């Protein structure tokens, strides 16, 4: 059976689907068996698809009473040991922040999809934006680590959704899947059979109850979780806790546990980091972009190269933690950096921080439209010519 046949019979292989549908199918492939959500444009197709598909794999779908409850139910399901996800857009992402911080602090794996639409507030529900980059990193109160993945195509939404679950499990961390309305509702072909059947699972507690320390870190900074029903009867809290999981304000215990929390992702950057470079080796101008803006930048690089201009593209796929070293290497020969993005300059702030001293220019579009390749090419060409 060739790819077209399998697509027609709906069994597997290559399909023409939208980004949101790819996300739902990626979640199933990754082992997601619980989804709680609340309707919001432009992410609702993820919930609709999973409402149909989760029962087929003995999973549970529930539409909760609000965005806050959806995030809470997802964390509750994951505390029960089941891989869980929710999906939302701007206003809903704001409402989820408190419980997202709980998941970060109590180290409960979960995946949160935020399809970025125009803001602030209700904004432009059906128009794209890339204005939640900083909120995805810093949206909840207090210091905490988080992983944010920024796919740029339908195929990449599928593969990054799978990776999001793997990272959530391996790092015991919430993972945000952040993409814009364009790739969410764009239809492209995606190969659905590239996910291995068995996926990573979180580290589960084993051994005697008396020796179990719920937040001990176990050498690699990632604690083993007690599965309810396995006899450990442990305590989980959003209060600052010691290795035993119980609340403490003892300065030494607080410092030890929070230091482990704040550095645990840094210790697993080899798993977390993902980026793409195109023609950066000799680039005078490096364009840094994510999502649909990176798709436009890709075309701009081709146009500039056709004119003999040395322009390259650096695309973070893992947005947070930011691929700092990789960007520094990619921009090693650059004289200027161009950051096209659909906001007022959030990615540019990070690029300026990482490349301190190098001229960094932005193209900012917040009209509810995607940035056109020609606009990026024109500015990149001008920078490459030294003007």
């Amino acid at each position: 059976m060739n790819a077209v046949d399998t697509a027609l019979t709906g069994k597997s292989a290559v399909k023409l689907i939208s980004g949101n549908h790819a996300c739902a199918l990626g979640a199933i492939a990754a082992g997601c068996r619980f989804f709680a959500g609340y309707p919001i444009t432009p992410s609702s197709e993820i919930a609709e698809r999973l409402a149909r598909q989760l029962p087929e794999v003995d999973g549970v779908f529930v539409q909760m009473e609000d965005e806050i409850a959806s995030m809470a139910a997802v964390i509750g399901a994951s505390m029960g040991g089941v891989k869980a996800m929710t999906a939302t857009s701007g206003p809903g992402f704001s409402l989820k922040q408190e419980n997202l911080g709980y998941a970060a602090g109590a180290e409960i794996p979960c995946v949160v999809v935020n399809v970025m639409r125009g803001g602030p507030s209700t904004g432009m529900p059906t128009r794209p934006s890339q204005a939640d980059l900083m909120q995805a990193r810093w949206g909840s109160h207090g210091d905490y680590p988080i992983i944010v993945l920024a796919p740029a195509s339908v195929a990449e939404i599928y593969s990054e959704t799978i990776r999001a679950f793997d990272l959530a499990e391996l790092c015991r961390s919430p993972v945000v899947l952040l993409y814009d309305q364009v790739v969410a509702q764009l239809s492209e072909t995606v190969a659905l059979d590239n996910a291995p059947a068995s996926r990573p699972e979180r580290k589960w507690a084993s051994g005697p109850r008396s020796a179990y320390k719920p937040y001990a870190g176990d050498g690699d900074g990632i604690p083993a979780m007690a599965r309810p029903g396995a006899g450990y009867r442990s305590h989980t809290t959003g209060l600052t806790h010691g290795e035993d999981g119980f609340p403490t304000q003892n300065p030494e215990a607080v410092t030890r546990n929070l230091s482990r929390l704040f550095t645990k992702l840094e210790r697993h950057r080899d798993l977390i980091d993902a980026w793409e470079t195109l023609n950066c080796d000799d680039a005078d101008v490096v364009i840094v972009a994510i999502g649909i803006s990176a798709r436009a930048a890709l075309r701009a690089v081709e146009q500039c190269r056709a004119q003999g201009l040395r322009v390259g593209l650096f695309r973070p796929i893992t947005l947070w933690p930011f691929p700092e070293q990789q960007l520094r290497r990619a921009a090693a020969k650059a004289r200027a950096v161009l950051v096209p993005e659909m906001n007022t300059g959030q990615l540019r702030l990070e690029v300026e921080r990482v490349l301190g001293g190098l001229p960094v220019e932005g193209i900012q579009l917040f009209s509810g439209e995607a940035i056109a390749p020609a606009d990026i090419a024109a500015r990149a060409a001008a920078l490459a010519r030294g003007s």
Partner: protein
Amino acid sequence: MYIDTAADFEIRDYLRQEMMPHFLCPGCGHGIALRALLWAIHDLGLDKDKLAVVSGIGCAGRLSAYIDANTFHVTHGRPLAYATGLALARPDLHVVVITGDGDCLAIGGNHLIHACRRNLKLTCLMLNNEVYGMTGGQVSPTTSETMLTTTTPLGNQEPHFDACALASAAGAGFVGRDVTHHVPKLKELIKAGLAHPGFAFVEVLSDCTEIFGRKNDLGSSPEMIMRQKSEIRPSAYRDTVDTPFRANDLPTGILAQNDRPEYGAAYRRAVAARKGAL
């Protein structure tokens, strides 16, 4: 009327002794309510390994840490939403929620009405002490009219919520209320709630002696408990005694019970039917 099983109930079997001494104030009714809950769990023979307790924020929310079970102390107002995810994902667990009047009726009010409507098997124990005690004594949705709190220095002008009437109207499978004065009776009520196949809402009238009691000059714990007793109306007497109860008297006992389908089982049945049809 009650089978007094106190003789074979050893509360220490259900507490995390390493967490003692507990942090409750002298005279607080929450410890009595916790005892009634653990006694009910003991009477029903529930397996501690399969027991999950989810609690919110406030004095009531802190109780989960003392229970020797799978315990989850979550965010303010959200324990019912966390518990919904946990119970749907793990139907093999017995999930109990411990919440307070502010946690459950103010910040978490939306989750309560939808938990009642959804009728998922959860037991929600709401400890009503009429005040935000943890934060120093602010007015709550159940503070009685005219009472003084730190945020009602002129006396409370808002009418108080009848949580059981709310839960009944929203369709909860089981609704009951009792006071800490009647521990064996409270235990029996909680037992009935735990045994109910759908969503069970149990309100316990607790007393906050140190903060609410002091502020309103209500005396010590025994006097506050007797005040609650004077305001209640046992449902057994409701239709038979023409009583001189106060205008704001509160009915107690089992106040509502229905056999609406339990949500988790209904969902799983629908899934099985669809899979069978494929």
